[in-house]
């Protein structure tokens, strides 16, 4: 059994309106050392697999096909083994 933690954000260079709004809000609240804020998505996916390689390959495929919009988003992931 594996737990995949998938992180999805806008690609570098793509405008992130939500990120800039949060940044602005933080600035007005007095957090004046904020350099940049990017807002993304975080997903946890449990897979019933024996091999980590296979799990990773499946997660990659899911990311490319469904979980992200490859035109404007990028992703990274961690895969952890878990015991039932």
């Amino acid at each position, binding site marked *: 059994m594996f737990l995949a933690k998938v992180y999805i954000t806008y690609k570098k260079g*793509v405008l992130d309106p939500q990120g800039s709004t949060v940044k602005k809000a933080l600035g007005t609240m007095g957090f004046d050392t904020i350099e940049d804020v990017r807002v993304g998505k975080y997903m946890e996916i449990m897979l019933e697999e024996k091999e980590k390689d296979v799990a990773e390959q499946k997660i990659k495929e899911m990311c490319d096909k469904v979980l992200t919009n490859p035109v404007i988003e990028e992703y990274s992931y961690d895969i952890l083994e878990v015991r039932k």
Partner: protein
Amino acid sequence: MGKKVDYRELGLTDKEYQLIVETLGREPNDLELEMYGVMWSEHCSYKNSKPMLKRFPTRGKRVIQGPGENAGIVDIDDGQAVVMKIESHNHPSAIEPYQGAATGVGGIIRDIFTMGARPIALLDSLRFGELKSERVKHLFSGVVSGIADYGNCMGIPTVGGEVYFESCYTDNPLVNAMCVGIVNKKDIVRGKASGVGNPVMIVGALTGRDGIHGASFASEELSEDSEEKRPAVQVGDPFMEKLLLEACLEILKSGCVVGIQDLGAAGLTSASCETASRAGNGIELDVSLVPRREEGMTPREVMLSESQERMLVIVKKGRENEIEEIFRKWDLAAVTIGRVTDDGFLRVKDGDRVVAELPVKSLAEGAPTTVNESKQPAYIKDVQRIQYDQIPVPEDFNEVFLKLLASENICSREWIYRQYDHMVRTNTLVLPGADAAVLRIKGTKKGIALTTDCNGRYCYLNPLEGGRIAVAEAARNLVCVGAEPLAATDCLNFGNPKKPGVYWQFENCIEGMSQACEALNTPVISGNVSFYNESKEKAVYPTPVVGMVGLIRDINKIVTPGFKKEGDLIAVIGENHGGLDGSEYLRVIHGRVAGNPSIDLEKEKAVQKCCLEATKQGILNSAHDVSEGGLLINIAESCIKGGVGARIELDSEGKRWDEVLFGEAQSRIVVSLSEHNCKLLEKISEQVGCKVLIIGKVAGKKLIARVDGSTLVKQDVAEISRKWRERIKCLME
């Protein structure tokens, strides 16, 4: 600067490059070459279309601003004017439907408020492949939600439009957005950089790396690796644009502004050289002063960036502070980046270093125009020839009727417009789903009617007639709600203009549209050309979308398509002849895209005059023009919208029954009116010289159609209503 840029990769030809070298008297550097590359792309220079576009009638006594500015303007009396334009965002939407459509809407809204007008309505003309594949559904739903979210966030109602599904648009959807604004004539502003020494400011969002080369990208055919061309995709921020809109309208009121231009395709490059060129001046600017979103951007990236929600403002000298103050209030950046000069050059500096120096006239207007080779494509003869004796007349007309009613091109568009906020600002009097949308002009009795129209299939079968029909139908839609058509804006979507067949379609559509605009007195005041709508060697149907505005003098006399009262008579204004050429019936029932559709503009004029006069006299209870699906579908729609049945009795006069019921011959409007008003309608029709024929009665809960005494169709209105409404939802879910 790294390796030398190849001009061919920027889409410039050898001849064009030679001309640039001659004009400059030297080789351009890389940045200069890239600036030429974007400005001389078809998207910015209209080099393949300019000679043809001259054909359009663009003058009229109500025209205040014709083509050549950010948008066209037409007079609606009382010191007020309507500002409007339609523009395509086809290529970006094919790559990223949601953001592509959203930024298309954002761009067209900026074109309107740049002229000093407050945007009051949006319309969208969309084309997709048939709703069968997941890919098409993804494009369709993405585009619709992109439009909805942007318009809804901005607080501008999306009031109308159209959508067609045909296989030729499968890989290359068309997304055309139209925006309409209202301005007091005295407040109109233009995109000119006048007054030497006046400061030039960039305002609104920060500049990032997005969309670099969007203009050149739009001037290519889509290919397999288009998905890899990722930098061309921009993400829109409607809340930012809302702030920009309010801030711009405020600075325009302040009297500090000389000229203003939106940063659209080719970004800062095009905005600076176009404003300078219009005023016959030059501009000097320093890219190091442009506020940026990202680290380490080069002058090239700043000059070519297509980051959204930005404007270039030319300000009266010494009043920069007032502008900064207003923008600060709206939480937006406003920075002086240069000034207007008198030498006719666009001089780009990076700090103290001059990185580009180009003559603005050459950059903005100097792209050599071409008249391409034009030849009638071979398919025309094949598709126009159709032997009707080989097309069987159906036996079960009920079945045919239901099939047609559920066609993607005929069924209700509710699934789409339910996602749009069409009531925000509470001026919308006639909602989506009618022949045209109607908005009131607050504080007056006036209203304006808006529509977009184009049957691409007709244009494919006969570009000349198709072009005429597109204009005629747009005007007819306006007349149906009781509006006098005033002016048109057009979005010409075609394939690769270097192909003689495509260019021939282009030429003929423009000729046809021009003829109809002249006949119906609706000059073209703005527009946009989108070529290279091709994929895998297949071009889309020639699709010259016509957006039109009409004036209603008294909003109490608006007419809508639904039948109102049992006992009313149903009449056809115009000749009740059939015409199956190019019909939806031929496509859906017989799988044929064939025939040679046509229109008689003199008859059309008379029909429109008759309907308009009848609405003015207030004698019509409903009016709806006959279009896709023909007479019976038209009547079914009026039944559905009125929640009431109808009995129709037709005489075929020897024509095929399918032709009588489903033919799409032009110049017909179906109206309903109370019996005692019939005499008045007949009188009007005699005066203008068109026919009126009573064909039935609004009655009961059923739609019953009889031809030559035989009952061909008998349907429960509630039942067909459900089928018609739920069709797209069913296909999508």
